[in-house]
């Protein structure tokens, strides 16, 4: 488990189940009127194929650094009271939580916008990969997003 927290931001990468209650407690401060918690969970069916679990792998040090940068970025764009990004790695069976994106703000507009931004950016830039294990035993790396638009050459 790796973790980085300031007074108002919290990033963690861990194996084992994530706690929505823990995230909620962190986010619910007096200055916030709105708390938005997004959960990414393992979906069981994709195009008629049954998923048993998703297996997550990450470049831990950089994933942590990127997630910290993301929360800082979001705090510049919106008036965020508290925010958290919690990601699970290892095996995540169907219906279990792989990621918690949490934001609390004074009013809800910012909470919705920031939450959407954070999950979209996480899925585009953070060095985490997942492999889908199907009921028939086959495992396939999920097609991902290439971080950034700048070309290498």
């Amino acid at each position: 488990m790796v973790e980085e927290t300031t007074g108002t931001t919290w990033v963690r990468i861990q194996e084992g189940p994530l706690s929505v209650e823990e995230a909620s407690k962190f986010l619910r401060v007096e200055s916030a009127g709105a708390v938005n918690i997004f959960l990414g969970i393992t979906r069981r069916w994709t195009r008629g194929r049954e998923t048993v679990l998703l297996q997550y792998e990450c470049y831990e040090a950089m994933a942590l650094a990127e997630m910290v940068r993301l929360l800082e970025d979001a705090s510049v764009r919106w008036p965020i009271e508290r925010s958290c990004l919690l990601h699970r790695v290892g095996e995540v069976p169907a219906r279990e939580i792989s990621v918690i994106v949490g934001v609390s703000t004074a009013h809800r507009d910012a909470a919705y916008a920031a939450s959407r931004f954070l999950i979209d950016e996480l899925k585009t830039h953070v060095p985490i990969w997942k492999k889908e294990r199907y009921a028939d035993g086959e495992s396939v790396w999920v097609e991902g997003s290439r971080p950034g638009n700048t070309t290498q050459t």
Partner: protein
Amino acid sequence: MPPTKNPDRQARVLLFSMLREEIGRSELIVDVETPISVRELLGRLSTSYPPIRKAGGSIRVAVNLEYVRGDHAVKAGDEVALITPVSGG
């Protein structure tokens, strides 16, 4: 006798997910006696490792935990990572 490893002249290149599986290594060591650009490093690695060549432009490179561009100079002691398209969340 094989040449001794000299970390003062080397950079580590970390591999993940598909690249790691296809190459069978999670880390490569490259000689970087004088700094070389990321572009050139990828060129060298593409020559030696077909899966890297095949991944081509889908690879983003990070050096010391930050994404960099093709003209970034890699020097001895750097931690380089080849980041294939990500799928977190």
